[in-house]
């Protein structure tokens, strides 16, 4: 075997030797490849680097999404980028097939309730959570959410000992398919529907 030439040829973004129609399809396929290879949302500027200068990433993604009509997965816009995601109707099938290491599956209901409280009331301290739930929130639970990358530490609370506050992360948005925190259900509407007990 011959030694491989280490210097990679310049990556051709423009594809100027292809006719426009084929060029567009090739850009779509590149975006598809990048999204497929990534486990986390890919921001627009990263996708822009694999297509021609001035080519609209949004339009390419739109065309790609249209192509995926009828497939079991789709492109979701999440936390300022895009990612592939299986369509929700196939969740039971995926769960039935395997012991999926979904980052949310090993969280129990109470974990998720705490996570929701952090999402709505961030930045919030462990004491603040205790006030909402009427009981001590264990360091274990906070540690679990932290280990999943769903929460991070925020600004210190201006209180004795300057305790840490907790805030949600971009991974939290991705895990719940939210584009931004604004996609959280409106707390007032939840209240009106009697679904949320506000502290």
């Amino acid at each position: 075997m011959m030694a491989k030439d280490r210097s990679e040829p310049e990556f051709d973004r423009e594809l100027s030797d292809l006719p426009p129609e084929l060029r567009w399809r090739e850009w779509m396929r590149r975006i598809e490849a990048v999204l497929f290879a990534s486990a986390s949302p890919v921001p627009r500027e990263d996708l822009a680097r694999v297509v021609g200068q001035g080519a609209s990433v949004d339009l390419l993604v739109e065309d790609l999404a249209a192509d995926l009509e009828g497939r079991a997965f789709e492109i979701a816009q999440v936390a300022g980028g895009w990612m592939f995601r299986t369509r929700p109707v196939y969740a039971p099938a995926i769960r039935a097939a395997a012991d999926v290491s979904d980052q949310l599956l090993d969280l129990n209901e109470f974990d998720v309730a705490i996570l929701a409280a952090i999402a709505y009331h961030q930045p919030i301290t462990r004491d603040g959570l205790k006030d909402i739930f009427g009981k001590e929130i264990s360091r274990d639970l906070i540690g679990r959410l932290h280990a999943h990358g769903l929460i991070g530490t925020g600004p210190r609370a201006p209180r004795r000992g300057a305790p840490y506050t907790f805030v949600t992360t971009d991974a939290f948005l991705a895990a719940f398919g939210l584009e931004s925190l604004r996609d959280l259900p409106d707390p007032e509407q939840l209240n009106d529907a009697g679904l949320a007990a506000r502290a």
Partner: protein
Amino acid sequence: MTFARPEHSIDTDTLPRMPAWVTSARAETLEDVAFLSGAALNHLHLVLGRAEVPQALFRDRLALRAAEACVGFSGRSERAGELRDAVHLLRPGDLPGPAGETCLAWMRAVERPVSIKALGRALPTLEPGQIAAWLDAGKGSPVTRAAMVLEAVLREAPRADVPGLILADAALAQGLGWEHLVPLLAARLKRADLRKHGDDFRLAFHRALISSVIEAARQAADLARRVTHLKAVAPKLRAKGAGDAVEMFLTRDAVAPSALPLPDRAARRLCDRLVDLGAVRELTGRDTFRLYGV
């Protein structure tokens, strides 16, 4: 006990006042609001040209006000005090949280002269090409240009009201020949205004600008008066590093004693002394983690 009374010692009439025909006018037509917003902006332009106005401090305080408005648009309940806390109690490596993020964006946007790079630092999720394209999305008079920028951003990215408002204020500053962004639009726009289009949008835009500029001019005069007093009492401070500390108060909305270039106890004593002299205020109302500002 005697307290310094800055009001009597300083001539407040050195700064021109906004004419009453601007402050008390009730304009209903697009033509009238456009005329008044132009008049108000020109007045602010003259006020900002005065050496007595502490420019950086003025912008920092308006940035906080703009951030408060934007946090409100996003359905959150944090007020200015909480935003200040989020920014001043943030340690390296910690996340600012949604409200803190908005506040940092505004504070960074006013820190350096308007440029694509400076705006990119304030809005790190946007690519420079996008910022440049949006900043250039308007034409015509400065206010029309700013309105077109905001419209363009919200049309293409309906949730991007923070970038939209920052870029619109940046376009306004450029149009008026100001070196720095002065946050004026967010404070008086309502959430519903951001969903308006065409003439309704223009009308709301001018109206928000008129009342915001009137308020900003008042605030500039007020800050000019306060810093004149601070500068007047500064020579009385004998602590080492007091000069640098005063310089920080002259440029920032709020300062934590721990951020001052003095040992902790000396920093706290200096803040107490400045409060006694009527030169700065304690802003939080707390006994600990206090923040001070002019």
